[in-house]
């Protein structure tokens, strides 16, 4: 199978999954199975591409020219191969989980849900493999529009206003800042292609670079840096599979991935290091990390708490990109994987708790640890990984980020990362502590939904196991950093 064909196949299969789900909409089991099948196939393709990138193979395909110097083209970068691997592998588990959750919670319009879920994955994969910034932008927008029906899924007043907020912030920022920034880059360089080491060096005026960085980081609203973060907590009205796969993995990771790609392949880390035009962003990212951690502590709703935790964790990646040193970039790229694995576990658990016990609030979790031991076990694994405790995979990325900040002599940043870990311990482990230490007098009827229990267990154990195989991923990541 030729390399370019592989790309087309990988991008099209989620669309076919959506199509087949629609065709088989009257047979629930068949309809829901296409998510799993599609996930398996795209996972195999992503894995093959991932290995190919390790062996310096080139995966690219060009369809047609959009305008001068910009083609509709796909080209897999080292960074893209990581993102696609994460998105496609977790899609399999999320599809299994979706079946358990949607049926357990008795949600309506399941066909529409499954279809747009697949389309969102399609957009995420296309973002991962896009060959230039404009193609990335196109699928960035498709991702936004395709997740809108998922956010507003319940179709009540609350979810509708949340959907509007979601769309207006994401589309608005992308049209006001991101697209003009893309035009700006194009007008200065005549191209938008991703190239190792960036394309802006010697072509873009260094004194305006910080302004461009600002347009990009605020334009890529999916990266959820403050003050453009309000859409993410709002999006938590969506059913939990959406929060888990899309708002902990595909959508938000597409945001930080886009920013990382811009830093690594458009601006170029060397150019950033020379001009120091992203140093202000380091402090904004630090502020976001701290502020959202503190907000997370005050949230009693488990999903809202996890949402603010996500905002904080996304800023780790922005921080790494802003530091732009090779260790920091390594940490930021790796954090895409580690945070995805950890956070999807937590969201899976939050959803599983909701389906089985109909509990949304942390304070209601009293004594639930004994009733739902497997879920709480998985939750603890995911939480420990995000906190960054060895031997969990999350410790690696945090380690590299701290090393990166020391490398750039931002000692305060390293300290802030430490404090943030402490806050993580507090707000992520509090549900576990409440679940096992306090007793509730309330009788709670439990519903069995086994399909929601196994996925978090797998990802949770993954957090533990992959700690020992970190080099497997780091091989590709070191391809990202060109010194």
């Amino acid at each position, binding site marked *: 199978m030729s390399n370019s064909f592989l790309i087309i196949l990988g991008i099209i299969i989620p669309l076919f999954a959506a199509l087949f789900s629609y065709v088989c909409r009257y047979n629930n089991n068949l309809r829901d199975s296409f998510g799993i099948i599609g996930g398996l196939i795209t996972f195999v393709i992503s894995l093959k591409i991932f290995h190919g990138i390790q062996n310096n193979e080139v995966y690219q395909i060009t369809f*047609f020219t*959009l*305008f001068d110097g910009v083609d*509709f083209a796909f080209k897999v970068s080292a960074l893209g191969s990581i993102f696609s691997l994460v998105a496609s592998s977790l899609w399999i588990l999320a599809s299994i989980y979706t079946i358990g959750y949607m049926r357990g919670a008795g949600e309506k319009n399941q066909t529409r849900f499954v279809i747009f879920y697949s389309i969102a994955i399609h957009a995420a994969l296309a973002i991962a493999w896009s060959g230039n910034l*404009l193609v990335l*932008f*196109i699928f960035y*927008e498709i991702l936004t529009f395709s997740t809108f*029906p998922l956010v*507003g899924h319940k*179709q009540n007043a609350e979810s*509708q206003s949340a*959907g*509007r907020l979601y*769309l*207006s912030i994401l*589309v*608005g920022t992308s*049209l*006001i*800042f991101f*697209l*003009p920034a893309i*035009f*700006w880059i194009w*007008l200065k360089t005549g191209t938008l292609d991703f190239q190792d080491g960036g394309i802006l060096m010697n072509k873009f005026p260094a004194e305006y670079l910080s302004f461009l960085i600002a347009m990009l980081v605020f334009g890529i609203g999916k990266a959820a840096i403050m003050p453009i973060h309000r859409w993410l907590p709002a999006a938590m009205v969506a059913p939990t599979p959406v929060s888990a796969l899309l708002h902990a993995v595909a959508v938000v990771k597409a945001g930080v991935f886009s920013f990382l790609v811009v830093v690594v392949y458009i601006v170029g880390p060397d150019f950033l290091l020379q001009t120091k035009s992203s140093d202000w962003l380091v402090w904004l990212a630090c502020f976001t990390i701290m502020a959202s951690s503190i907000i997370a502590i005050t949230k009693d709703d488990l999903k809202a708490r996890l949402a603010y935790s996500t905002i904080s964790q996304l800023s780790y990646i922005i921080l790494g990109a802003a530091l732009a040193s090779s260790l920091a970039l390594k940490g930021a790229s790796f954090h895409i994987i580690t945070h995805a694995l950890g956070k999807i576990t937590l969201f899976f658990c939050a959803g599983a708790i909701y389906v089985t016990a109909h509990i949304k609030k942390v304070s209601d979790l009293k004594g639930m640890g004994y009733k739902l031991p497997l879920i709480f076990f998985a939750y603890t694994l995911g939480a420990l990984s995000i906190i960054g405790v060895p031997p969990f995979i999350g410790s690696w990325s945090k380690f590299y980020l701290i090393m990166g900040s020391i490398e750039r002599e931002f000692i305060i940043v390293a300290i802030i990362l430490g404090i943030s870990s402490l806050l993580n311990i507090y707000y992520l482990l509090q549900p576990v502590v409440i679940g096992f230490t306090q007793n509730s007098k309330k009788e709670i009827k439990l519903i069995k939904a086994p399909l929601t229990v196994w996925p978090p267990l797998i990802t949770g154990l993954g957090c533990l196991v992959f700690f020992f195989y970190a080099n497997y991923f780091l091989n590709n990541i070191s391809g990202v950093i060109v010194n």
Partner: protein
Amino acid sequence: MFDIFLDDAPALVVVLPLLISAIIAFMPSKIWPWIISIITLLLHLFLSLHLLKEISVSGLIIYEFGNWEPPWGISFKIDGVNIGLQLLFSIFVLVSTFYSRKIFLNEIDYRDSGKAYSLWLLAVGSLNGIILTNDIFNLFVFLEISALASISLIALGAGQNRKALLAAFNYLIIGAIGATFYVIGVGFAYAMTGTLNMNDLVIQLAQYSDGQLAIFAGMSFMLIGLMVKAAIFPVHIWLPPAYSYAPSAVSTLLAALATKTILYFFVRLLYEVFIIYPSYLSLFLDFVLYPLSLLAIFIGTVIAIYQDDIKKLLAFSSIAQIGYITLAFSLKDHSGVASGFVHIFNHALIKGGLFMAVGYFAILYKDRVTLNSLKGFGYKYPITSFALLICGLSLIGLPLTNGFISKLYLFQALYTNQMYLSIALVAVSSALAVVYFWKIVEQMWFSEIKFKSEKEDAYIYLPIWIVTISIIVFGIYSTPIIEFSSLSADYLISGYQN
């Protein structure tokens, strides 16, 4: 034998529709007026294509009526500036006429269909005259014919909603004021130069190269008159009611082509004639047209957000989009004028498509289309709704649609002129366009009511989809539009730089 016709092609594209309109005016039949119109417009398209062929060989055609040489006789001029527009005009008119039949059958008394198509062809012929004429007084004549024809067409909407009469009357009064301004300006120019031919006017005006108050007054009158006709903010007030209460087919024709042709003449007058007074021109462009365009973009978009009536919403969005075009024209360089022409082409397709789709919805709903009435239409009428979605995304300017190409070139033009504030404003306004467009989408697909899909009329959705597909095709393969536009800009700007 056929060659005789082809030699007179520049005159025929205008005269043919006018002649046929007289023939079909009193036809009692329901279908014949439409068939004859379609045949006429097919001929029209053929003639336009022939003109394109001629232009690609010779580059310029001056057609003298009755072989009276200019500056005495009336002449038509076809060159790189208007050939692209002529082609777009021909094609779009044909498509919208095809679309119009079922719409007219539903919205007006079938016994009126002869009159309706008579007026329709009258509007088509006169609007085409505006594109081709090389004579400033002849333009006034065409302006008046087109205004009267479109006013009567708008008034036909009275069968649906009596407010159409008021809208038509408004248009009549305001349009008459605009035309009066224009003709006073022409009078001044004629008094000073003794000529009405545009090319001759340039030569004659050269003798007043130091400037004359009477000339400037005349020029100002002409420009203001045309601004009223082209609905440039703040003299746009006739447009929203006129577009929204007219029969849907008429809105489609007017929104897509009427203001565009006048805008074309406006820019031609600016860059071909008034160019001899560069200081006057830059004064007008920098301190009148430029700020007004920015205001139009912003205010038009904001008002559109608060509209409940969809056709009105689209009309206010048109005000903003006309603002984009005039903003581009106010830039005084090749990239600006070219991007203005790009947007004339693209916006004609986008707005045409949107009005077509909404017009169909109006028939299906049998009442005015408001936000509320669109509930569940996405499921009920998926084919048309999907076309509407694509046109709307193009209006916002997302990649892979032709709206994006417009935006790209507008940004480029603004950037080369270092107008960063305008870039910001255009970006914000296109984001605001998401707000009003998404209100429609939300009602259509995400309301709580569910419907089974119903049968749609292929006679109506076919033309809609032709427009929609062209939106996507020109979004991906934009070369033809870019080339026609830059050709137009070449012709116009070469005058500016000499």
